[in-house]
């Protein structure tokens, strides 16, 4: 306790320091106040004169945004100047002149003009108020010659984003929008200012830092009439980098055209490199709707559309892979030695497992089925039996090997990973162990399994590539405004499945016969002279209904999804693709003809009716 008594030492000799400090404070504040006095009271008049008459302004010169092109350099997104007429309400001295001249040029009534100017005069005095945008060149030249000298009237050229191919590739390219205050606060100082357009979705968002460019500054002098006297200093803005994609817009557009169904997705990859050849999600929307900003009505329409046109189904649509998944089950069965190529099961049209009847799509049954026949004719019972012997965890392991359950790694940021259920997941999610029934439904790609179209295309690419899994990529290269390549993509092998080559060959032969065999389910994608490997799938949306119901009697949202995956790997130009038609019905009937058209276009084969 005594230490506190000692430390309480009122005699600490700070009187001198306090006096000196007080003197310093008084002195400093006197200097500050006298300077303030001089600035505000002696020179005040001069400064307020300067403030009104001869002032310099620092204008920020927005950088032109980089373009996005396809692999042949065709422009998919670019900047175009957009002229607009604005006024500074605080500087507008002759509103009558504006009301007299402008309406006839702009094709609006003088009353309307008067109302707009009234609104302008009620808005902040020194903030630009926009009267009309999207002016034509004729309008601009007429306005310039008639109103160019009028104080307070500004004709502004602002870049806006233009998408020549409109809805083509809309989900990949993405949209621009005005920067939100949250993004503004998060960005480094001075990089953005309110009103700037920034990428909101797709590549425009994910590659914002490359596309943006660097802003410039222009210091201008303005006279009493608000006219620019001269530029005192200028730093030019730097254009953003251009991004070149891997895909060919002509093929992309063709795929979009042949996909006439309401909703679904197509993904085409180069199996050897992982290059994306086409990435389609339907329904789509015109990107130009968003430029320079989307109207409230259009935004509402897009958002309230039950088919969600803004969603990129290719990387975010979650579907049970259906029978296309049977090749995964097959490879698991062969690799674990549960079956041998010649193993047969008897298909009687249905199988009973734990008091539940699981049906084959062919009610009469397939009879004695080998693996080859099971794949070619897509026999369900064969895979029920195989799934039962394998168990869900072993199927899950092979599903992961084919890339299911994790994002494919394409450069778009919001990709979904899908879901591969295993016993640990089931325990965590439902608190119950995985059952035989789960293994059975999983073996034919139903149940809890969820995959995206790009994952299905990647699975096909892995088979075409003899088991090597490549990472899909969309960006070919990024080139700066001065022509330097900032980034150039190289194919990346994610992993090698190290399947037994004999097993892969067996699978590939079966997939070929899906198309070429008379009883194959993928007959509709047969192209004379081209060796197509494929697998059909029909993914159930709700629990099985009575099969007798005709397709068009089932409500749209209860119809099955049609799936078709295919590849060609014996040509110099290779391709692997997945086609998903939401609520389209059967994969072989609806999705296969689309794939056929795409393949014909890709290989320049004249399309002849079968």
């Amino acid at each position, binding site marked *: *306790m005594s230490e*506190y*008594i000692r*430390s*309480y*030492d*009122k*005699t*600490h*000799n*700070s*009187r001198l*320091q*306090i006096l000196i*400090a*007080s003197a310093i*404070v008084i002195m*400093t*504040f006197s*200097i*500050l*106040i006298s*300077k*303030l*006095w001089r*600035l*505000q*009271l002696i*020179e*005040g*008049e*001069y*400064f*307020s004169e*300067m*403030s*009104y008459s001869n*002032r*310099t*302004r*620092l204008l920020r010169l927005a950088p032109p945004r980089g373009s996005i092109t396809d692999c042949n350099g065709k422009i998919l997104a670019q900047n175009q100047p957009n002229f607009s007429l604005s006024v500074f309400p*605080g500087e507008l001295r002759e509103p009558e002149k504006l009301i007299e001249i402008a309406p006839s040029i702009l094709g609006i009534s003088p009353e309307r003009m008067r109302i707009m100017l009234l609104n302008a005069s009620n808005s*902040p*005095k*020194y*903030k630009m108020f926009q009267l009309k945008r999207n002016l034509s060149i004729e309008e601009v030249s007429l306005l310039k010659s008639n109103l160019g000298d009028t104080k307070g009237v500004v004709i502004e050229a602002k870049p806006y984003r233009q998408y020549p191919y409109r809805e083509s590739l809309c989900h990949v390219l993405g949209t621009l929008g005005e920067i939100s*205050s*949250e993004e*503004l*606060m998060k960005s480094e*100082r*001075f990089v953005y*200012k*309110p*009103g700037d357009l920034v990428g909101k979705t797709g590549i425009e968002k994910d590659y914002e830092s490359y596309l943006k460019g660097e802003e410039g*500054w222009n*210091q201008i002098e303005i006279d009493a009439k608000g006219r620019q006297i001269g530029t*005192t*200093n200028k*730093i030019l803005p730097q254009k953003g980098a251009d991004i070149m994609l891997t895909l060919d817009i002509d093929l992309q557009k063709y795929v979009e055209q042949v996909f006439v169904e309401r909703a679904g997705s197509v993904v085409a990859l180069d199996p050897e490199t992982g290059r994306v050849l086409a990435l389609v999600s339907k329904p789509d929307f015109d990107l130009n709707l968003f430029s320079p900003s989307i109207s409230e009505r259009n935004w509402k329409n897009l958002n309230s559309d039950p088919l969600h046109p803004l969603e990129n189904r290719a990387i975010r649509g979650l579907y049970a892979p259906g029978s296309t998944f049977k090749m995964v089950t097959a490879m698991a069965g062969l690799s674990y030695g549960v079956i041998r190529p010649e193993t047969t099961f008897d298909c009687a049209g249905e199988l009973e497992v734990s008091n539940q009847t699981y049906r084959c799509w062919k009610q009469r049954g397939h009879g004695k089925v080998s693996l080859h026949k099971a794949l070619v004719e897509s026999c369900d019972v064969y895979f029920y039996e195989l799934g039962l012997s394998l168990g869900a965890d072993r199927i899950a392991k092979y599903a992961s090997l084919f890339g299911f359950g994790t994002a494919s790694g394409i450069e778009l940021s919001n990709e979904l990973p899908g879901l591969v259920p295993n016993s640990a997941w089931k325990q965590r999610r439902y608190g119950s162990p995985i059952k035989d029934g789960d293994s059975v439904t999983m073996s034919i790609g139903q149940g809890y399994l969820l995959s995206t179209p790009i994952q299905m295309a990647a699975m096909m690419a892995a088979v075409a590539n003899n088991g090597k899994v490549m990472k899909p990529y969309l960006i070919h290269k990024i080139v700066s405004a001065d022509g330097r390549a900032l980034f150039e993509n190289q194919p990346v092998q994610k992993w090698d499945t190290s399947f037994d080559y004999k097993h892969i060959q067996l699978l590939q032969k079966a997939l070929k016969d899906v198309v070429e065999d008379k009883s194959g389910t993928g007959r509709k994608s047969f192209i004379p002279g081209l060796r197509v490997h494929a697998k059909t799938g029909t993914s159930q949306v709700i629990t099985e209904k009575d099969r007798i119901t005709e397709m068009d009697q089932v409500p749209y949202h209860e119809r099955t999804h049609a799936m078709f995956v295919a590849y060609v790997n014996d040509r110099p130009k290779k391709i692997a693709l997945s086609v998903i038609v939401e609520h389209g019905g059967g994969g072989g009937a609806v999705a296969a003809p689309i794939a056929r058209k795409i393949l014909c276009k890709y290989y320049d084969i004249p399309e002849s009716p079968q």
Partner: protein
Amino acid sequence: MAYFEIHNKFVVSFGRLEWSIISVSVILTMIGIALIYSATASLGVHDKTFVVKQIAWFSLGIVMLTALLIVDYRIFEKYSFWIYLGIIVALIVVWSIGRVTAGSRRWIDLGLMRFQPSEFAKVAVVLALSRLLGEKFGSAPIELSDLIKPFGIIILPVALVLVQPDLGTAIVIFLIGVSVVLFAGPSKRVVAWLFAAGISVMVWTYFFSGKLLLDYQKKRIATFLNPDYDPLGSGYHIIQSQIAIGSGGLTGQGFLQGAQNQLMFLPVKHTDFIFTILAEEFGFIGCLIVLGLFAAYLFRGLSIAHKARDGFGSLATFGCISIIFWHVTINVGMVMGLLPVVGVPLNFLSYGGSSLLASFTITALVANVSMRRFNYYS
């Protein structure tokens, strides 16, 4: 006994709540919020994000102030080195993040706010120095050998802030450190040495930097240390800021009516250039009121430093007061063109959570020392 102790600790202490310092802080912050509203209204942001955030930090500041008043300030003496260490770690984190993102960064992103440790580093340096020098305070003059550790305490954060790079904060930390050392009662020898060192540094900078460096090199260094303020390198901001202040005249152009404020943009007018808004919209009278409030704060602080019950309390109070003093001097001097442009906020008025919370920490420390100056423990 226990009762009296508790009684002493809380009831008596809160009976002597340091109202003057606290109410000046609150008034200044409210003026600041009005000015931030005016400054950001012209940015064209149709929402009130900046004002809302500042109000949120103000509320947080009040909560923090109350919490810091409940404990005896000797707890800061006890943990001063740990506080200092924590701030140093935070500064290193900021520096390494800045290295990774290859740009200048002064903050750590905490999601809700950007924690800017350099603002708190100033308070931490004051606490650590007061602990080091407090023991000897009043009993014997400070000798050169006593200054080795304090020198290390000052120079470490100065270096870490300088590499961010943030010249303004580095200068302020250094000045604060020197202020505390001078207040601690140095011997005449030490004063002479410090004086000589100061003069030689000034001479060295004046002559040698002029001779050794070419103009463009100096400019390059200046833009490196301070890239934000002068994008054109022509004193643009100072001219604009002088015009804004000057056109305020005696009574100002009125709230939200400042032509310079509403028209052109000083990019940092809601933070470091907030004083120009005050001057333009509220004129000489408005500035006098605000400077008067700051003066009242400083003199009240000095009186508390004089009457504090122990060396640590006295030194810490003086250190805290010197933070406010240097900020006001450098910031107001800078916007009027008396001093070069460096990034120093104006306490309580400038927009920014870290700066406001650090300001309220200072108020809390000073008030705490004042409230407990009659608490003796026996």
